[in-house]
């Protein structure tokens, strides 16, 4: 066998392993009910594949081969455990699988990823761990990559993941299968995890973070998976459309020297028209079903931005109405804040500032940069430079990266505000 063939086989293994990792893992977790055991079994199967395939050639059905070998490893392990501890009922151990070489293509396994993602996003897990487990098991990200997402050391993240998996095992968070046991009331938790992953990718692309994968793409991948596995649900499609609309504007958000460009000064011709068309198609299809929800409403707002010929010609009245509708679904301080911005352009800065003071609860937003930034901008609009300086200086303290900081400093250096010394700490 030549070197080139071997490389190709390795590439095939990578593809089989990473693209299907979630499918394989989900099937194995369902099979044995234990995260660690499933991961170890799959790892072992992949190691054996890496040894065997380059020499003996690939099996016809790679996934069947991997699943069969992994299942056998798991069964072996359980039997050993049984012998040494006497804890397990022998009946609980799945029987051996004779399809060792994967010759039997009929052992197609079902896509069980829905059960796995609901397990990973269980509300009894700490929220960052829901994200970590989802990225690890469904997207096949490494612990090193996940540690980078949370700006943590790899060893710390590894320990936290071990603890989270232990909680799943010990506290009885069970694998939900589609025999009616998928807890639909937990769909919101799953969607929240996916949108979190997207926003981490979208808003924190910073030079001080070393992520070699696109979190936005991972989130889109997860949302598409949900759409496919839950065809009757509308909100996964709303979320997918929302993320496509965001992605369409992505390239116009950053200047060549890395600064954030706010929507009103973005070059709209740089927006990705093809992506907007795709997003439109997804959104229109789902709105026709007549079951609006928070993600569909946010996508509709995003659509209005994407179709406006200029910032001034945006249909702000409609956006204001949509935010009011969104409030009926999710009454949160952040939605109030966004509504306030819509009022600024639909009506007037005075009315917006009035709304901000009356209806936007500052306490929960104290650490939230957009709150201080919006407040500062409105105060600039109202020529209250002293108050604006205070708000923007507070905003400066909540910047997460250089881009945000540069942007706020440029506002602070505007005429009027700049009358005071701009060398803030």
């Amino acid at each position, binding site marked *: 066998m030549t070197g080139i063939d071997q490389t190709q086989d390795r590439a095939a293994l990578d593809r089989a392993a990473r693209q299907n990792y979630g499918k394989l893992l989900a099937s194995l977790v369902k099979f044995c009910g234990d995260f660690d055991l499933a991961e170890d079994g799959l790892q072992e199967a992949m190691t054996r594949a890496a040894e065997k395939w380059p020499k003996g050639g690939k099996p016809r059905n790679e996934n069947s081969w991997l699943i069969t070998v992994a299942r056998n490893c798991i069964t072996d392990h359980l039997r050993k455990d049984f012998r040494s*501890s*006497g*804890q397990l009922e022998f009946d609980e151990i799945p029987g051996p699988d004779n399809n060792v070489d994967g010759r039997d293509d009929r052992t197609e396994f079902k896509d069980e990823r829905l059960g796995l993602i609901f397990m990973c996003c*269980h*509300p*009894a*897990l*700490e929220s960052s*761990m829901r994200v970590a487990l989802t990225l690890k098991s469904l997207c096949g990200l490494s612990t090193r990559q996940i540690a980078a997402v949370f700006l943590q050391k790899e060893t710390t993240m590894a320990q936290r993941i071990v*603890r989270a998996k*232990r*909680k799943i095992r*010990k*506290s*009885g*968070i*069970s694998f939900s299968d589609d025999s009616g046991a998928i*807890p639909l009331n937990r769909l919101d938790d799953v969607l929240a995890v996916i949108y979190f992953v997207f926003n981490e990718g979208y808003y924190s692309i910073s030079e001080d973070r070393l992520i070699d994968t696109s979190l936005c793409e991972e989130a889109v991948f997860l949302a598409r998976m949900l759409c496919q596995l839950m065809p009757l649900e509308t909100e996964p499609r709303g979320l997918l459309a929302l993320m496509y609309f965001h992605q369409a504007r992505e390239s116009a958000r950053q200047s060549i020297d890395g600064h954030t460009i706010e929507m009103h000064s973005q070059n709209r011709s740089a927006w990705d028209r093809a992506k907007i068309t795709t997003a439109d198609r997804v959104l229109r299809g789902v709105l026709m079903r007549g079951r609006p929800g928070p993600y569909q409403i946010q996508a509709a707002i995003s659509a209005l931005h994407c179709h406006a010929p200029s910032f001034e010609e945006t249909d702000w009245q409609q956006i204001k109405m949509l935010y009011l509708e969104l409030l009926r679904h999710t009454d949160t301080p952040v939605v109030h804040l966004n509504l306030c911005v819509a009022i600024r352009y639909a009506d007037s800065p005075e009315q917006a500032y009035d709304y901000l003071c009356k209806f936007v609860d500052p306490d929960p937003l104290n650490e939230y940069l957009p709150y201080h930034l919006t407040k500062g901008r409105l105060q600039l609009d109202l020529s209250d430079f002293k108050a604006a300086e205070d708000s923007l200086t507070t905003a400066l303290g909540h910047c997460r990266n250089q881009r945000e900081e540069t942007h706020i400093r440029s506002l602070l250096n505007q005429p009027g505000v700049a009358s005071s010394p701009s060398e803030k700490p």
Partner: protein
Amino acid sequence: MQYLLMIYSAQNAGPQPGDEDFAEFMGEYFAFTRETQDRQAFVAGDALEDVDTATTVRVREGKVDITDGPFAETKEVLGGYYLLECQNLDEAIEWACKIPSARFGSVEIRPIMTLPAE
């Protein structure tokens, strides 16, 4: 009268599994259980899985709030307990939401530890 004896200790206090005096320590527990049984005092007793496996449920204004970890409000005191047989954590959470005090207090859910045969 019946009395509930609640056992508190720091997470790593006392002999841990793997320590050489752990078996002896467990032996003391087994002996204590046996004594309570022999003298017909025993009603129920179990070890709990450690605090990392805890889930706390609160219901506020009709909304269910589920958090990872034990209850942390120092002003709240243990007011009662239910020992329930559930299929999984979801079912336990479902029950917890229905406990009337969940509307102003907290319900901490801890799995009962399954011990290997003696």
